[in-house]
């Protein structure tokens, strides 16, 4: 994402004026005297037109594509996320990778700004970007084919005892994270990108995820997973130095990039149903109502792991997810940006649901692996969850308007500042 102060800022500023009017009109709908609201609207704007007074469409919102970092990481998570992993064809060499990334970058740059891709056979579907972002990642084989220097952590995660990994949800040479507030936008962007990738790579796996629909909850609200838990409270906040330190890598061609761990976590909702509310809260160490730690009242209160019950047990149990995920080492933190999934059930079951766990961190080995190792050893939530897919990707930095994603790896170009 480009630094604040680029075009996005003026767009945001421009919205404030109309926002006031929408509030007034919204109030009218909600029962405030309509005549009063209309009168106020006239007072604010002596020449109101129907067009100006209408609610701004979220479909017209865009997230800048070019910049130091790729979009879709520090972007407030959109409602719909599609994760597609590609396998490179055996014939795809370094030059082909550059051609592929030029084409895919151009597609993404246009589509995210609400313009059709070149040779877009359904151009009308591109006209509602709805905060579309396309984020590219590279697997180990991509970097090897590019004859680039791979970070040491760019490999499959160590085997965890809880893992029951399926090849159809694991690994891959290219990651496409395609996210927007509109599922039709996501589908069209995916179709366009995958058509253009077809000469170079084939689809290995695809995972479709969702959060709350746009407008259901306030933007920035921590998501809930299908266990009903508030999921992601301890994330560093985008735009802070803390976030930058946790997420962005500063080394070589990867400067401005990061890593993505994508794990498919099956959630046994039937077994979870048998656990009462108190047990559920003990398992995670947070209240279900608002995600506050069992020692606090508000979501973002710091958990107090020293607090004990009158009979001397820790209020936040030793086996709870929040206790086990927390490290004494401040370096061992990650930024989570996952999505729920709810597949078609099979074999007489009523659900086949879970979480597409997605985390971004500067260094997988230093940040992610220690946390997951602790959770593998002990985390009561493991009783109801099972990892069934796992993949690690390097996320290259963003690109400038005359570059393409991956150019620092494929052409030695300097990353945009």
């Amino acid at each position, binding site marked *: *994402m*480009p630094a*604040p102060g*680029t*075009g*996005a*800022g*003026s*767009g*945001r500023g*421009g*919205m*404030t004026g109309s*926002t006031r009017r*929408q*509030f007034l009109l*919204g*109030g009218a*709908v*909600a029962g405030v005297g309509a005549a009063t609201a209309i009168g106020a609207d006239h007072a604010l704007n002596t020449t109101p037109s129907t067009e100006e007074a209408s609610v*701004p469409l979220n479909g*017209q*919102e*865009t*997230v*800048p594509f070019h910049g130091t970092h790729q979009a879709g990481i520090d*972007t*407030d998570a959109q409602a719909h996320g599609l994760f597609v992993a590609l396998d490179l064809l055996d014939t795809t060499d370094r030059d*082909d990778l*550059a*051609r*592929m990334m*030029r*084409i895919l970058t*151009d597609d993404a740059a246009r589509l995210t*700004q*609400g*313009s*059709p891709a*070149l*040779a877009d*056979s359904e*151009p*009308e579907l591109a*006209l509602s*970007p709805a*905060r579309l972002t396309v984020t590219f990642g590279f697997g180990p084989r991509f970097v090897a084919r590019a004859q680039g220097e791979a970070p040491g952590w760019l490999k499959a995660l160590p085997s965890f005892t809880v893992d029951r990994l399926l090849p159809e949800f694991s690994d891959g040479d290219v990651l496409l994270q395609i996210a927007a507030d509109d599922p039709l936008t996501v589908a069209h962007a995916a179709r366009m990108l995958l*058509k*253009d990738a077809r*000469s*170079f790579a084939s689809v290995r796996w695809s995972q479709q995820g969702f959060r709350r629909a746009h*407008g259901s909850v*306030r*933007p*920035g609200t921590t998501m809930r997973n299908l266990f009903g838990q508030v999921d992601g409270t301890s994330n560093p*906040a985008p735009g802070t130095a803390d976030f930058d330190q946790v997420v962005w890598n500063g080394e070589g061609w990867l400067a401005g990039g990061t890593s993505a761990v994508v794990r498919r976590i099956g959630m046994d909702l039937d077994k979870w149903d048998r656990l009462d509310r108190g047990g559920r809260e003990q398992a995670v160490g947070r209240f279900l109502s608002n995600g506050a730690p069992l020692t606090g009242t508000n979501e973002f209160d710091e958990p107090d792991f020293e607090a004990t019950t009158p009979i001397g047990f820790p209020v936040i149990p030793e086996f709870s997810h929040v206790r086990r995920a927390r490290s004494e080492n401040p370096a061992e933190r990650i930024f989570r940006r996952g999505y729920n999934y709810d597949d078609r059930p099979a074999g007489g079951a009523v659900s086949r649901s879970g979480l597409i766990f997605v985390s971004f961190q500067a260094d997988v080995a230093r940040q992610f692996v220690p946390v997951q190792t602790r959770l593998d050893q002990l985390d009561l939530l493991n009783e109801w969850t099972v990892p069934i897919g796992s993949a690690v990707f390097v996320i290259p930095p963003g690109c400038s*308007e*005359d*570059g*393409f994603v991956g150019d620092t790896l494929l052409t030695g170009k300097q990353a945009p500042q």
Partner: protein
Amino acid sequence: MNNQLTIRQSKTQSKTMTASTSTRLGALLAAAALALAGCGTTVGATDGGADGSASSAGQSVAIADGWVKAAGSGMSAAFGGLTNSGSGDVTVVSATTEASSMLELHETVENEAGEMIMREIEGGFVIPAGDTLSLEPGGNHIMLMDLTDPLEAGEEVAFTLTFSDESTYEFTVPVKDYSGANENYVGGDPEPEMGDADAGADGTGTEG
């Protein structure tokens, strides 16, 4: 009922940087050449007039959103929006590229049997002053009649247009995979075929 207020307020607080866009499809064709690498990059224009007049056709015309269809051998076609920003009409009389030994300027018309066919346009492409000529699948296009090498997705191809005042305009466009643009071609030589394996889905006539 307070949701309206809540949503609107929080929107302005959102950390995500967003900007409104009001892009309309029609406006895209008239847009200036994009700055993206290799996408309708203007290479140069020459002033063909011997008298060195202020604005030759080659200096007035620019392409936006240009691309050429990938093909293994045989025929292909190039598309995009050619905008004439000059004060007089211009006429494209020919096109050249190293990618094909022969090019034609094509229009797509309905024949007596009611089929859409493409054929070489008589007199070239006229672009009125201030107007944009859309070269698109199913419509006008620049036909590459005989590729010298395979055109692979992501490559860039340079073209030179020559106008009736003998000025020229050079540009490069990227190669894209595309399954359409398979209109029937009625021309002097019916044999060459578009190189794509999937290009001849309807099996009628010669693809191009």
